[in-house]
C-alpha cells in the first residue's frame, strides 16, 4: 500500500519536472551555417533538379504523358494504309508511263 503511494508520488513529481523549463538557446553561429548550407545547395543544381523530377507529383504525370504519346503514335501508324511492293510498282509504272504492258504491240501497226 505504502509502496503504491510512494510510486504515485514519484510519478506526480516526475510529471511536473518540466514545469518552469527555460527555452534552450540555439548555436550563436547558426546563421553562418545556414548560409553555408544554402550556398552548398545552390552549387548542387543537378541534385535539386533530380529531386524535382523524382517528386511523385512530377514523375507520375511525366510517365503517364510518355505512355499516352507512345500509345497515340502507335495507333496512328497502325491505322495508316501499309503500301505493298505491288502498290509501289504501280506508282512507279504510272509515273514513267509504263503502265501499258503491250508497248510494242501498240506502236507497231499491223500490216
Amino acid at each position, binding site marked *: 500500500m505504502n*509502496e503504491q503511494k*510512494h*510510486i504515485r508520488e*514519484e*510519478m506526480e*513529481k*516526475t*510529471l511536473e*519536472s*518540466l514545469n*518552469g*523549463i*527555460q*527555452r*534552450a*538557446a*540555439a*548555436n550563436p553561429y*547558426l*546563421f553562418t*551555417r*545556414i548560409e553555408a*548550407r*544554402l550556398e552548398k*545547395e545552390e552549387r548542387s543544381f543537378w541534385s535539386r533538379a533530380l529531386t524535382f523530377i523524382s517528386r511523385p507529383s512530377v514523375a507520375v504525370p511525366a510517365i503517364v504523358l510518355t505512355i499516352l504519346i507512345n500509345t497515340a503514335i502507335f495507333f496512328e501508324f497502325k491505322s495508316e494504309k501499309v503500301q505493298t511492293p505491288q502498290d509501289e510498282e504501280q506508282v512507279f509504272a504510272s509515273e514513267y508511263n509504263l503502265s501499258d504492258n503491250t508497248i510494242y504491240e501498240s506502236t507497231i501497226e499491223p500490216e
Partner: protein
Amino acid sequence: MDEQFLIEKLRQGDEAAFREIVETWKNLVYNTALGILQSAEDAEDVTQEVFVQVFESIKTFKAESKLSTWLYRITVSKALDHLRRKKRKKRFAFIQSLFGAGGETVIEKPDFNHPGIVLDNKERAAILFKAIDRLPENQKIAFTLHKVEGLSYQEISDVMKTSVSSVESLMHRAKNNLKKLLHDHYQNKD
C-alpha cells in the same frame, strides 16, 4: 521590424531580412526540435533545415497564419522526418547485425538532459523525456509543444491543424500513457 515587412523583404531576396528572421526565431525552432528529437546535434541539423526551407519557400507562405505557427509546423514536420529516418537506419542496422554483416552497432540512446531544466529536476526530467520518447507521434508533439514550448491548446491546434478538443484528447491520452510508463519505471526500480 514588422513581421509582414520582413516576409515581404525576404520574398524579394533580402539577406538582412532573412538574418533577422533567423535571429528572432532560431531559439523557438531549436527548442521545439530539441524537445522532439532529444539530441542537441540532431536539433541543430533540423533547425538549419527549417530555415533553409523558409528561405526557399517563403513565396508560398500565404500569411494566413502567424509566421511562428508556420515555423512550428515546418519544425515538427522536419523533426518527425528526421526521427523516421533514424528509426529506419536503426532497424536496418539491427537486421544487418542479425545476418552478421558489418553494420553499425545499435547503441542505446543516452539519457537526455534538456539545458533549460532547473538542476533539482534534471534527473526526473530525464526519466520523463525517456517516457515521452515512447509516446505515439501525435501525443508526443502535443505534449512537447505544451510542456517544452509552453503553447496553449489553441496554439497547438493551429500548429497541428486540428481542433482544440482533439488536442485536449491527445493531451489526456498522453498523460495517461506517461503515467503507465512512469508507473512501470518506478515499480521495476524498487
